[in-house]
């Protein structure tokens, strides 16, 4: 696999990779895809895909609030590396004029 494709996938997956890692990953991808390509040898004419095995559909619940499942603001923020006045802090993504 070409490293420019690896680079593109890394962006799609939001995973930071170095130039060296891109090369190692390209080799690893080829190893994996070699195994996956074998799927093309199986005859799947007329076969429906299975996305889940339970057969369950439209499992719904009543639209009511279950207070026992609510976090307090403190609980919700407890594991965040950066908070400010009760908010999660994220990197700036919009340029200021």
């Amino acid at each position, binding site marked *: 696999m070409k490293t420019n*494709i*690896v680079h593109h*996938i*890394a962006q*799609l*997956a*939001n*995973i*930071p*990779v170095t130039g060296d*890692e891109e090369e*190692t*990953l390209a080799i*690893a*991808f080829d*190893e*994996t*895809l070699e*195994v*996956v*390509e*074998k*799927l*093309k*040898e*199986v005859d*799947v004419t007329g*076969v*429906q*895909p*299975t*996305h*889940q*095995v*339970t057969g*369950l559909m439209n*499992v719904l*619940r009543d639209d009511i609030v279950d207070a026992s*499942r609510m*976090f307090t603001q403190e*609980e*919700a923020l*407890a*594991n*965040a*590396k*950066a908070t400010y006045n009760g908010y*999660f*802090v*994220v990197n700036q993504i919009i340029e200021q004029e």
Partner: protein
Amino acid sequence: MKTLNTLTLKQTLDLIEKNEISAADVVKDVQSEIERKNAELNIYLTLDKNAIKTAEAHTDQELKGIPIAVKDNFCTKGLRTTASSTVLDTFIPPYDSTVTKKLKTAGGTIIGKTNLDAWAHGSSTETSQFGRTLNPRNPDHLPGGSSGGSAAAVAADMCIAALGTETAGSIRQPAAWCGVVGLKPTYGRVSRYGIVAMASSTDSPGPIGKTVEDCSILLNVIAGQDPYDATTSPKPTINYTTSLDKSIKGKKIGIIYLDIPELKEIKSLYESQLKIFEQLGASIEYVKAMDPHPAIGVYTVVQRGEVSSNLARYDGIRFGNDRSHFGAEAKRRIMLGTYTLSKGYSDQYYNRAQQVRSLYIKDFAKLFETYDVLVAPTSPGYAKKMGATEGSSMFGELEDMLLEASSLAGLPAINVPCYKDDATGLFLGLNIIGAMFREDNVIQIADAFEKATKWNSWRNN
């Protein structure tokens, strides 16, 4: 005088019931064993320092305060949960998974969190970002994975029983490599809520224990529909211990996979053990199942696709460290999954994999029209040596070749030890697969085999 950590779950329950021992004493003996061996074997990542108090408080409940090891991908409220990744190295869950909540409500004491392949991505426990776990049967060898820590904890008597999860082999394979019993319930029988997700369409939490009976006791505690997991089944659960101590006369057993070239060296060992079923009155028939090799490809694509979606939530903003902390294996899987789901590729990879999956489901369903269970070797060989996974990006998938198809189909299955090599101390395991929701057959037949043979390490307790 044997220490209390060497007891089975059933024995511990009985002795506490009779007031001959206390749960706190069991916890203490387990903790002593952990102190002796954990530095060497690296089984536990986190220990609960309140375990003795918890045991004392719950001694009147169903599980009587007995210490259970929990794989570190179950969220345990207030107790660090890492999924063996440095992304979550300081994560303290603010809630319990449904399964650990059920365990606690039933009076189980969580003694600590066990090591796994990071994010459950693996079949060796070598991809853990906290170091590999060693196999207590022979520390030059790996315990298998991804539930390697839990299986090793049971084998080493560093707990009374344990919980693991299986996506495609992660309960059965480490149970086989560690010479213990591992039960993978039907997909949807046990709730996945609060468990670090891997492949949402196959993940199955389940018990790992010293005996088939111990596993069925734990399954009773954790099974059942959960309103927080929409994929759990509304089918009522049964009392799984009623499948124990029942004759298997007349049961029809289909032996599959045994003619595969990779199994040439151990084939005759298995054939000699399979005769036990006939001695017990069951009939065995060697039968052809769909070739398991394509299942490797199916699983590779489906799992990595679902992983790429599930691990998107680890953004380092609301909890955990940022995505640069992912290890090499996690990066490979997320990115391969992203690729096979991306525009232009999803038809040839993901959709096709799900079509092949349908073929496996049909194949098993047809076999279960004739047979009560299907039986095969769990693993193509004994536990591999330390370092075996290095330089191999497909190690896990190849090791789990005999397990992937049944996991993709959502079937219940169990590993029971079926041979021990006295020279190395390592075990081989038997994989007994049942039809959907037929844990009763799986347990009944596994229990009969265990009690008729000498492979269970706790049979002389």
